[in-house]
């Protein structure tokens, strides 16, 4: 039983750092390696780690299924929304430089929102797939 206590304590210490690192990778994707995909995968890995140590029902109480499903669709919606907003403000689809008063800060806003959208979708999809794989029991037989 002592090994279980060690695992739980180490997990509780590590998971906040993993989440902060994921946020760092996301928002510093402009100045160093990183960006939306890596951050999304790291967030999903942190929640999977939590689910492996503390059990799947506890993880599902923490990050419920409806939230994950919403995240999957929300990211793509944000991305397409940035594109459509470019259309509404007078430029082409996915034009960033019409989003603000000068083109460079428009690019900043556009890139930021687009990366956030990608991160949300990637972490949602990875987590959803893990929930589906882990929640399935062995030995089910479907009708043929």
């Amino acid at each position, binding site marked *: 039983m002592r090994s279980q206590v060690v695992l739980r304590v180490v997990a509780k210490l590590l998971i906040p750092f993993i989440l902060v690192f994921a946020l760092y990778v996301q928002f510093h994707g402009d100045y160093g390696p990183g960006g939306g995909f890596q951050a999304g995968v790291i967030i999903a890995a942190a929640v999977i780690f939590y689910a492996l140590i503390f059990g799947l029902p506890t993880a599902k109480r923490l990050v419920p299924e409806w939230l994950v499903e919403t995240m999957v669709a929300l990211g793509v919606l944000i991305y397409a929304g940035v594109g459509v907003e470019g259309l509404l403000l007078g430029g082409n689809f996915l034009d960033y430089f019409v989003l603000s008063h000068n083109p460079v800060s428009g690019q900043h806003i556009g890139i930021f929102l687009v990366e956030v959208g990608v991160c949300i979708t*990637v972490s949602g999809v990875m987590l959803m797939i893990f929930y589906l*794989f882990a929640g399935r029991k062995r030995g089910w*037989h479907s009708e043929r």
Partner: protein
Amino acid sequence: MNVLDFVNYWIAVFLLSTGLYIVIARGNLVKKLVGLSIFQTSVYLIYISPGKILGGTAPIIDPAFKIYSNPLPHVLILTAIVVGVATLALGLALVVRINEAYGTIEEDEIRAQDVGRY
């Protein structure tokens, strides 16, 4: 034309052939998917290797460096990696369903069951 320049590419091609061999020759479905992912990673290697410039650095603009490696293959391969894992997830979901329907994940046994039915 120094022959040793191409050793990098030859190793990548060897990995590609190994991945292809695993996909074609092995009957276990999970092993086929692992072989497919080996195939995909060797393609990334073949794609990114020509982009490297000797003496260059990673393509992050900084006043201290003058020569940067080519960023365009990096962008394309980034997309390819994530699409690859999406494909792997779908493939594994199919393997799980096949296992529940047929009771096995060996290709020969699945084909035998199908032949016996039709």
